[in-house]
């Protein structure tokens, strides 16, 4: 929308004021399923950040140099999702080859990520907001960081919640959602600082 926004502002905004999870509700499924344990949350957060940064950049290039010149924007959904799936698959193979140790901690989360809404969501936001390449990179990286931050914070809170007396019907996803609600409320506090959308 406003191509003149400074990349650093986008970075800050995508981590705090318009956190992709807490204000745009993206990536909730794996978020709720995984957030019970600190270690996997960390791994998934890292994986999301890496994949988001890479795929949003590739999708930007594909859109700019293939889809727009050929007037194929109607098919962007299929193209974006295929690019994401292919990138994740290649990343998995490369990591497996280069560092088996990293594969053990990161690799198991990669298949989950293909269907993580945050990845596709970031690509679509990038397209709608008309970011240039540098802005796209910082936006992807910042969104990933924001997601990582949110899942780590939630995993830490969940640890305390397990020791609290929660009504039977609210246990599990119910209390998780309420917790996320409070976190989102805290992040709303940041929104006075700057507003990008």
């Amino acid at each position, binding site marked *: 929308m406003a191509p003149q926004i400074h990349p650093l502002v986008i970075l800050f905004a995508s981590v705090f004021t318009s956190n992709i999870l807490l204000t745009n509700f993206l990536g909730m499924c794996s978020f709720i399923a995984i957030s019970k344990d600190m270690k996997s949350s960390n791994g998934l957060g890292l994986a999301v950040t890496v994949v988001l940064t890479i795929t949003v950049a590739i999708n930007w290039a594909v859109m700019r140099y293939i889809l727009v010149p050929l007037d194929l924007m109607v098919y962007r959904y299929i193209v974006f999702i295929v690019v994401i799936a292919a990138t994740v698959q290649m990343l998995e193979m490369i990591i497996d080859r280069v560092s088996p140790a990293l594969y053990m901690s990161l690799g198991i989360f990669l298949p989950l990520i293909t269907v993580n*809404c945050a990845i596709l969501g970031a690509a679509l936001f990038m397209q709608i907001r008309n970011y240039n390449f540098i802005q796209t990179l910082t936006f992807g990286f910042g969104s990933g960081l924001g997601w990582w931050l949110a899942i780590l914070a939630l995993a830490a809170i969940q640890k305390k919640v397990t020791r609290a007396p929660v009504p*039977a019907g609210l246990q599990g996803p119910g209390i998780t959602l309420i917790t996320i*609600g409070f976190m989102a409320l805290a992040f709303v506090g940041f929104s006075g600082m700057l507003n990008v959308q």
Partner: protein
Amino acid sequence: MNQMTDSPRTILKKNLWTDNPIFVQILGICSTLAVTNKLANTLIMTAAVIFVTGLSNITVSALKGLIPRKVRMIAQTIIIAFYVIIVDIVLRAYLPDISKALGPYVGLIITNCIIMGRAEAFAQANPPMLSLWDGLTSGAGYMGVLVIIAVVRELLGSGSLLGFQVFGPNFTNWTIMVMPPSAFFLLGALIWGAKTIMIKKEAA
């Protein structure tokens, strides 16, 4: 659990209540929770989800013998994306305002876990017509929950329903209701209520 023997009636009951995709499986809230601040948007969005779930289920089921197991995830994704593109084109042609308001969220139906989940869990192992029914009813179960959230959010957040002013001009809007946190709170509370009823029924 043998799903092959489920009659259309049991499937309906399961998808609307006992196995409701949102209450029990917590699937697919990613893309749609974001548009629950206006009832009209929610109705359009969930109708689109019903359409895509039903048709992608029937397609996956009809093609299940032809798709090699190794590539079935990507094949399913492409089938889903195909229907989402249809939805996107139709919305842009006939409801341009709503299409603008929904923004990227229409495209995000592709990654809505509920659609993939039904394709994987039901359509892979069941005949096409039953899969279509399963997709439509899951979508309806999903719609029910989100419409409740949207009604509460729009009513309290803007004092209106479908854009018509319900409360008088003196009504103070609950600003929190149009902000993202309220969607989380409402969904949490709804799940709480539904689960409590289910637990009571089980105990009785």
